[in-house]
């Protein structure tokens, strides 16, 4: 059962071979057994989960089940869920219980899915190793000494360890794709605006996008069907016709043009990752694809641009955490300024403070033009590179991350080294394009390698098709960590 696809689970639930309550209890038991070691979940609420499971069973009994009805999913703790503690991985929100549902949460609820729990994450989604969480490090199920990646590290670990059927993540600079790669699972960051950001705690509003993380492209498609769609509560949500992201899964890849950006295969890419990606490209050739050499000349600037824009937005987005209305407030303070200072100093961790300071600096009078405005201009150039590239290819492929999972603590003292872990993913957020990562083999240390697939705007169905056909031909995605 732990290796069943969502489609199989749905079939078993519909056929009453298993109930949602049984399935939910099964996962809760696994979580109780394995989570103390992995720390993939921050908050569980078994009674609520089982209540949803009972409701799902009743709905299934009436024959009103949908594709995800009764299936237990984990939700990244960045999504506000009514009645659930929603921490965003921060002490600041340690006791915050949301009075409302994020759009993504209500979409899952309306589909009859079960919320199994809230997954661990880097604090306010700022990190690439899940080590910045106030609620402790998450361990990579493939090697307990290694990081799961971040910021959706709890979700990636939970999916890889089969502690849920699948789960949600969010991606601002690679936070779905990089942990998916490091934990050997599949993850999709949709085109900016496809999934509503309402109720998703903002890190960098112009880059944040929610997406599914699962064990196969086929599962991702079913989840995206539920998550995507126009929401009037998010002004950046796009008004488009509802689409079925599963519709093209079975399409053959004959004639597919894959662009390989030379900038993604140069210095900094570890040999074993490069080898696994090359093997995946060879597999695609066998499937009928042709390879096109492309260039994304401005992508080398994506890390500096990102580390101006994302902190700028974050510094403002995180101002609401001031200890006045909810969240952490210092126990003692003299005056208002001190209340702010102490509450925020105590409530935020180091990485969050670092980014607030960078962001405040680049927006300051006298620096705005040199940093923020210039970064915005380069952001447009980076996006333009992709427009140019898609004149010659249908999808772009490359490594998701330059290395396999590194060890816990390995990059803790060097933020820049940590930032480089997202070197291949960030440009995609800056351009607002859809990107995904799928398992494509293992590195020298036996750790999973991710293949990144970047599509043109709104090409999610095509990307899922490209991923699914590869997964039909290979078995990297069905491998499970030892001892799980």
């Amino acid at each position, binding site marked *: 059962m732990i290796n069943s696809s969502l489609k199989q689970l749905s079939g078993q639930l519909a056929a009453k071979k298993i109930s949602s309550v049984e399935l939910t209890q099964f996962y809760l038991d696994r979580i109780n057994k394995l989570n103390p070691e992995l720390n993939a979940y921050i908050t569980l609420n078994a009674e609520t989960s089982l209540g949803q499971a009972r409701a799902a069973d009743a709905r299934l009994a009436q024959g009103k089940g949908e594709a995800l009805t009764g299936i237990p999913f984990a939700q990244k703790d960045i999504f506000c869920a009514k009645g659930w503690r929603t921490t965003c991985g921060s002490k600041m929100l340690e006791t915050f219980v949301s009075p409302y549902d994020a759009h993504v949460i209500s979409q899952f609820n309306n589909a009859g899915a079960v919320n199994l729990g809230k997954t661990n994450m880097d604090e306010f989604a700022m990190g690439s190793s899940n080590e910045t969480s106030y609620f402790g490090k998450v361990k990579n199920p493939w090697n307990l000494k290694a990081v799961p990646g971040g910021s959706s590290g709890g979700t990636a670990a939970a999916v890889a360890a089969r502690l849920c059927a699948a789960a949600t993540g969010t991606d601002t600079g690679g936070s779905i794709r990089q942990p998916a790669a490091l934990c050997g699972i599949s993850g999709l960051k949709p085109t900016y605006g496809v999934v509503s950001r309402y109720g998703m705690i903002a890190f960098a509003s112009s880059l944040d996008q929610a997406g599914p993380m699962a064990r196969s492209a086929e599962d991702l498609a079913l989840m995206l069907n539920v998550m995507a769609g126009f929401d009037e509560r998010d002004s950046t949500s796009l008004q488009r016709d509802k689409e079925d992201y599963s519709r093209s899964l079975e399409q053959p890849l004959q004639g597919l043009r894959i662009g390989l950006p030379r900038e993604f295969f140069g210095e900094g890419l570890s040999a074993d990752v490069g080898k696994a990606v090359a093997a995946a490209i060879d597999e695609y050739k066998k499937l009928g694809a042709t390879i096109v050499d492309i260039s994304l000349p401005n992508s080398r600037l994506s890390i500096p641009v990102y580390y101006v824009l994302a902190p700028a937005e974050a510094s403002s987005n995180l*101002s609401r955490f001031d200890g006045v209305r909810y969240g952490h407030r210092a126990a003692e303070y003299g005056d208002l300024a001190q209340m702010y200072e102490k509450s925020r100093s105590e409530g935020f961790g180091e990485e969050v403070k670092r980014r607030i300071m960078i962001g405040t600096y680049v927006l300051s009078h006298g620096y*705005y033009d040199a940093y923020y405005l210039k970064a915005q201009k380069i952001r447009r150039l980076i996006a333009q590179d992709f427009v140019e590239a898609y004149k010659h290819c249908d999808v772009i492929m490359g490594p998701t991350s330059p290395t396999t999972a590194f060890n816990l603590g390995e990059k803790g003292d060097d933020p820049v080294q940590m930032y480089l872990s997202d070197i291949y993913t960030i440009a995609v957020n800056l351009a607002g394009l859809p990107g995904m990562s799928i398992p494509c083999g293992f590195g020298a240390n036996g750790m999973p390698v991710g293949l990144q697939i970047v599509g043109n705007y709104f090409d999610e169905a095509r990307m899922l098709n490209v991923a699914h056909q590869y997964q039909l031909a290979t078995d990297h995605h069905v491998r499970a960590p030892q001892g799980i």
Partner: protein
Amino acid sequence: MQWEIVIGLEIHAQLSTKTKIFSGASTAFGAEPNTQADAVSIALPGVLPVLNKGAVERAIKFGLATGAHIAPRSVFARKNYFYPDLPKGYQISQMDLPVVGKGELTIHVPAVGKEQPYEKVVRLTRAHLEEDAGKSLHEDFHGMTGIDLNRAGTPLLEIVSEPDMRSAAEAIAYAKSLHTLVRWIGICDGNMQEGSFRCDVNVSVRRPGGELGTRREIKNLNSFKFMQQAIDYEVQWQIDTLENGGKIQQATVLFNPDTGETRSMRSKEEAHDYRYFPDPDLLPLEIGKEWIEQLRATMPELPRSKQLRYVNELGLSAYDAATLTASREMADFFEATLQAVPKDAKACANWIMGEVSAQLNRDNLEMPQCPITPQQLGGMLSRIVDGTISNSGAKEVFRTMWSEGGAADEIIEAKGLKQVSDAGALEAMVDEIIAANADKVAEYRSGKDKLFGFFVGLAMKASKGKANPAQMNEILKKKLAG
């Protein structure tokens, strides 16, 4: 030595939408604290702003009313600062690209002392949309501060003028004209006590023709009276400071109505760095020509256009025209009344600006609560014009209509106020008076002209006040002449 006063205004007009600028919470005034604070108003984690189209429409209407450029694309920006009643830690406003650009407003500056009233065109720099903050309540919380977020997110239009005003009188005339205009076009209720129309006044002084002086900004004036007092005090303070060899430091000041003084709140050095940047949660606001034209079609005739029409077509003075257009209700009342007596605009204007306004004032009423209708007043005026009643008779009709209601004709009938215009009857009356007062007649005829009034009095008494005065005068003159 002479000093020239230079004043520019920033006015925050609260837009009259039912819901907030970025959420569906109510904007109604006076509710229990925090009962109109939804998830967006209290800035819960994860909530997002959605722009209220009604607020944009009101901004466009303002642009149309001031002949301003309406930006086809404007941008919302975040103004970042920490304050307990600013729930997000930033205010959503507009900075580089405001929705309304340069416009202008013609103001009427009333006579002050020996100076004649005059008109002046004030240039408007811009008007932009933004959200209001909540309120900090410092009383009743035992050394703590209460926060009421009902007002947080209320839509404001910040209207910025050029430094074109040269006296407190001009500044107030401008603020009043704008106050009239925003109510006229229905975008703001103008309630100053409730904070719907708040004025920040930038004041500096300079030698005539010299460089602009350093300005100080008087914040949050919520009455025209305070504005006058604050400007007077501030101007004198600046002149005294400069004449005593001091320098003006750029600062934000508050006016204290109890002392009548302005006091510095923060200097330029303490000014915030607001770190403005475009709000990534909101798309640029795009306004198509079609939308503008749709709204243009709904615009009422504006006060300026009415004033010109009243002067040029109805022959009223500029002062009368300005007074009658002080509010849309006043102008509507005037025009509806005029329908009954189209050729007597001046009489119409005089009655409305005189008796009607005075009576409203005495009863502490506004024009919409006026107990008599324009039709009633018009009915009465037409009876003055056709000679049915005298002016004094009209005053009685008016008083009766005001307190008891009824149409002029009914009141004239019931009270017997109809003038006697029958020449035969009047002549008979005069003959009797002459016969009974032979001695006075003799005196009059020997040159004591002043006695004419005595005969008028007798005649009016004899007619019980109903004699047509003009006609009676004529008969008296003729008969007394012998």
